[in-house]
């Protein structure tokens, strides 16, 4: 009887496990194998070099620089993007008109394909004929006008901002949902106790939103560190190495220098780092929950 029941349980997970094993695990093992070889992706022969690729990654300055860039973009996402998302969610949580209208509008950026977004923003940010400079000059601020995407000082930040613009929709939605599940009674109780707006925000809203914030943070980190399509569309990773990110480096190794084995090793190291970050995140969130 117990055995029959357990077998029944397995049937529930079987479809997922089968598909997963075939389409993720097997390719993963192969990629891992490739990572241990020196291979150009074309020849039928590969040379086994053990951890040679990984050793090289440790010394690859461009790789770590790209990690820093991705980290920078993620930092901006964690602060600017999520702060914006939260503010907007907070604003929409109040009893205002057009709430549903905003809910739809704010989710348009995530829905647009990255290529469209890259194209549009490239046009807006163009140094000579872009809309942004056009307006800056009209507003009497011609000194601020510059070639946003080619200037090494601004390129990465601009890319990060556009990325945040594209991504805040998801955070907005999650924060809004979180805010809307805080029972109104709690706010009522706080007001009866004599708390003003700021205090009820601090004592009611924030503690209940911490878990939400943690969830959004994890998703933001995982998603932003792996970003690359938008960057290709806007700057191609340039100028020089200023907007390079890890996934772009992996693609460069695969296609540009035909070092498939090295690319796979890069992919695996990247994965390890992401797991480490998620793990730290997880422990941190547990602590935050206990506070």
């Amino acid at each position, binding site marked *: 009887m117990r055995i029959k029941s357990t077998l029944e349980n397995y049937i529930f997970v079987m479809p997922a496990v089968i598909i997963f094993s075939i389409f993720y695990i097997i390719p993963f093992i192969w990629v891992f194998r490739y990572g241990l070889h020196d291979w*150009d*992706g*074309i*020849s*039928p022969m590969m040379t086994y070099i053990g951890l040679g690729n990984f050793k090289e990654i440790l010394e690859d300055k461009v790789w770590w620089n790209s990690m820093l860039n991705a980290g920078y973009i993620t930092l901006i996402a964690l602060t600017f993007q999520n702060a914006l998302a939260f503010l907007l969610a907070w604003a929409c949580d109040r009893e205002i008109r057009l709430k549903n209208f905003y809910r739809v509008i704010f989710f348009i950026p995530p829905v647009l394909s990255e290529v469209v977004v890259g194209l549009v923003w490239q046009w807006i940010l*163009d*140094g*000579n*004929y872009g809309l942004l400079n056009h307006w800056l000059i009209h507003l009497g601020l011609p000194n601020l006008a510059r*070639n946003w*995407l*080619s*200037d*090494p000082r601004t*390129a990465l930040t601009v890319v990060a901002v556009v990325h945040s613009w594209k991504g805040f929709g998801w955070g907005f939605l999650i924060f809004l949902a979180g805010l809307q599940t805080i029972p109104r009674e709690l706010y009522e109780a706080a007001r009866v106790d004599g708390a003003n707006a700021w205090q009820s925000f601090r004592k009611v809203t924030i503690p209940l939103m911490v878990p939400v914030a943690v969830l959004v943070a994890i998703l933001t980190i995982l998603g932003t560190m792996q970003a690359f399509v938008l960057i290709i569309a806007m*700057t*191609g990773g*340039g*100028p*020089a*190495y200023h907007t390079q990110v890890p996934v772009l480096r992996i693609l*460069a190794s695969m*296609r*540009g*220098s*035909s*070092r498939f084995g090295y690319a796979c090793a890069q992919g695996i190291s990247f994965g390890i780092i992401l797991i480490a970050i998620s793990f730290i995140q997880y422990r941190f969130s547990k602590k935050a929950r206990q506070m």
Partner: protein
Amino acid sequence: MRFLSLFSVCCFLLFGNAGCAPKKELQKPTITIWHWMTDRELAKKYESLTGTKVNLELYAPSDAYSQKVRAAAQGINLPDIFGILAEKRDFASFVKAGHILDLTPYMEENNGAWKNSFFSKALAVNEFNEGNSYGVKPGVYGVPIDIMTIQMVYNRGLFKQLGLNPKEPPATFQEFLDIGKKLKEANMQGLVSGWGEVWMIDCFANNYAFNIMGKDKVLATIRGEVPYTDPDWIRVFGLFKEMQDSGVLASGIVTMVNKTAEQLFANDKAVFAFNGSWCVNVYKGMNPDLDYAAILPPKVSDKYPMSVWGGAGSSFMVNARSKNKEEAVKFLLWLTDRDQQAYLAEVTNNLPANKNSLTRIPDILAQFARGMESATHPNVWGVSEFSAVIEAFDKGIQSIIIGEKTPEQVAAEVQKIKERELAKKRQ
């Protein structure tokens, strides 16, 4: 429930169709060709001109096309005819992996009739010579369909606006730089080019390297015999700084993709462009009234001749494992025949690979064709630079243009990477 039945109907329709499609029993073999030519005209002309049953498949953009070819190569699933959009090194790997048919026997037939119909430079890109460094058996492995050169073009209309004589383009580098001052005053954009796509920077730099130090020294550098910190190389790097300082480069050129550069030049928004002869067709499509001419990049030194990159534009290879090898080769023979090439040249505004087809080409193309005399191409040098070095070289030049590094710094960095790669090779 209704949704479920709708879904099943859709399933049936699509699976039913998918089931039917591949099972065609044909009397005549069909050749499948994969190409990346998003130039609509070209593809359409191929289709209308073919005599045999040809299945043309377009996969774009070219990045995605390369990936598809490589994946198919791994799965031993290549079509009858395809192209490899890659450097000689990868081409060599494909040959050694047995994917590419050796076309030498066909080329040598009838006293080398096929071989001699091509511009030698076009064929050279697809050839491997005796004693090549790639370890490939010498021979011809690809067929050029058209040729191209990468040169400089300038807008004659804008020249007039600047007060310059449109019939006298800059002949020396210094003259070129001087125009920069005028551009700054007139608030116009100078040179545009796809230097966000690093290979174009490589091309430009390389042209001037040949001009400054000569072909032999450049090849010696690639072989590792001359360091990149040599004063001649520093001079090459310095040229970019000079261009940037003089104002003759368009702003934003370091992140520009070539398509954007083409747009700008075609719409009279830039005075110069560094582009390949394929641009003739592109500019025509965007602005048929564009008044421009093609020149060699203005030379820096008189010691050695100026050179440009040129050779085969697009080339096709035959799959060595194809079941329709003979048909495929016949098709390529026909495609590169004098009449077809002339026709293609006329309608696509590309230079024909067949040297007997240069009958009536528009004047602007003739200007590009003249550049063929000074043309060379990395794929014919017999040696390839390490890709890590090329990347450092090109990105280093980008840094010079944006003012982050000096030519000496970049030279030192590139040399360091070169030494690292050489050391790895020796292990």
